[in-house]
């Protein structure tokens, strides 16, 4: 086993691509070290990307935000600009684990760990976030929902690293929100979760919407029918009812140690409805 700390993306990509055995990228380490501890993975090479220039920064650009792959969720919570524009995304990031874990964990790690219950992913999917990927073949950008392909699996090729998550600058009258259900008040993995992102017109009618659900299918679900239930309407009781019903119906959950199929179905609708209400209020809707 080797531990390296490259100073550039090129070096990191080269080392990863050239590594003969299994290689692991270390950013926050809150998933990697747990898997190593449990004996589920014994990498031959650990590539610590935190020394790479710019990877621990949140940059504001003309287009929006670029959140470096090694930015801790705690740091995201300290960015007033990000919090103002994308409160739902920040909320989701700040729900991962404890304060201690948030001091280390990253949304890129959360995405690449590819758990269907990852907290930040439904919020990122609802937000229409994109991942900037660097690899041996150069750079490419994909929507975040294209990264996880199943529990623990991603579409990243050998040698590819996500450099940053990109979030758009917000249109006026936009708001997002994320809610998850856990049995305790903290420290649990989401049993079911919902992210909602809305933009309203001047009359408070929903112009565009994205609704994503977590922990109810092998990957996070972007529920287009749920968005359709909201678009063109104010957030009245009928729209919310329809949203809840569509979300419950869209779930393909399993029974496991964290919850039952029935529970996840029912609560997915409840959370979508509550998150939509918050997002609507944040967008200035009344």
């Amino acid at each position, binding site marked *: 086993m080797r531990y390296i700390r490259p100073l550039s993306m090129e070096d990191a990509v080269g080392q990863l691509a050239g590594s003969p055995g299994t290689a692991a990228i270390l950013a926050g380490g809150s998933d990697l070290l747990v898997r190593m501890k449990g004996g589920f993975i014994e990498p031959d090479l650990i590539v610590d990307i935190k020394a790479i220039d710019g990877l621990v920064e949140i940059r504001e650009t003309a287009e929006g935000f670029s959140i470096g792959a090694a930015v801790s969720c705690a740091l995201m919570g300290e960015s007033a600009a990000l919090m103002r524009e994308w409160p739902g995304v920040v909320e989701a990031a700040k729900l991962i684990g404890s*304060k*201690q874990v948030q001091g280390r964990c990253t949304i890129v790690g959360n995405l690449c760990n590819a758990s269907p219950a990852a907290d930040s992913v439904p919020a990122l999917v609802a937000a229409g976030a994109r991942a900037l990927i660097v690899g041996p073949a150069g750079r490419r950008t994909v929507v975040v929902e294209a990264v996880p392909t199943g529990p623990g699996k991603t579409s990243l090729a050998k040698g590819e690293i996500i450099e940053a998550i990109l979030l758009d600058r917000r249109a006026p009258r936009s708001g997002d929100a994320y809610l998850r259900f856990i049995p305790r008040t903290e420290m649990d993995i989401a049993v079911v979760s919902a992210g909602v992102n809305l933009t309203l017109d001047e009359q408070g009618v929903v112009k565009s919407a994205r609704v994503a659900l977590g922990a109810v299918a092998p990957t996070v679900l972007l529920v287009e029918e749920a968005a359709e239930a909201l678009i063109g309407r104010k957030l009245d009781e009928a729209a919310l009812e329809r949203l809840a019903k569509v979300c419950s119906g869209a779930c393909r959950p399993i029974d496991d140690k964290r919850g039952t199929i029935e529970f996840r179905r029912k609560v997915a609708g409840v959370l979508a409805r509550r998150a939509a209400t918050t997002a609507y209020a944040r967008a200035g809707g009344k």
Partner: protein
Amino acid sequence: MAGVAVLTTINGDNVEYLCQPDETLLDVLRDRLGLTGAKEGCGTGDCGACSIILDDRLVCSCLVLGAEAEGRRVETIEGMAHGDRLHPLQQKFLEHAALQCGVCTPGFLIAAKDLLAKNPDPTEEEIRFGLAGNLCRCTGYDKIVRAVQDAASVMKGA
């Protein structure tokens, strides 16, 4: 497996050590440096007993590799008191009997110190959520919360 040489700062002192690439900072502190104040309650970031402060960030040392400490600042429970003068949090934990078995106590003290550094006047709810990453099985948290409240008021007055 090649060892990694690390030069770091622990509680203000320069420290050098050699560790394995897969060794956690918790293991380094406890087994190589004899700093056994941080405890391993789970090894997976779920209990907070191994809490330390790394470059002003509260982290679980079981989720940090020893190799990652290169060039950084590590603060542990062993550095909390100044000589024979206890930190107000330590003093208040004693006065309120905010510990029974005491194995979670170093982690709680470090987490509470970080909490008060960022929020000197927390509400009860802020304390409870701020310390949610530290498990205590003995006290029911009541006296811990009271000790932190009391320490906060003392530290504000100081």
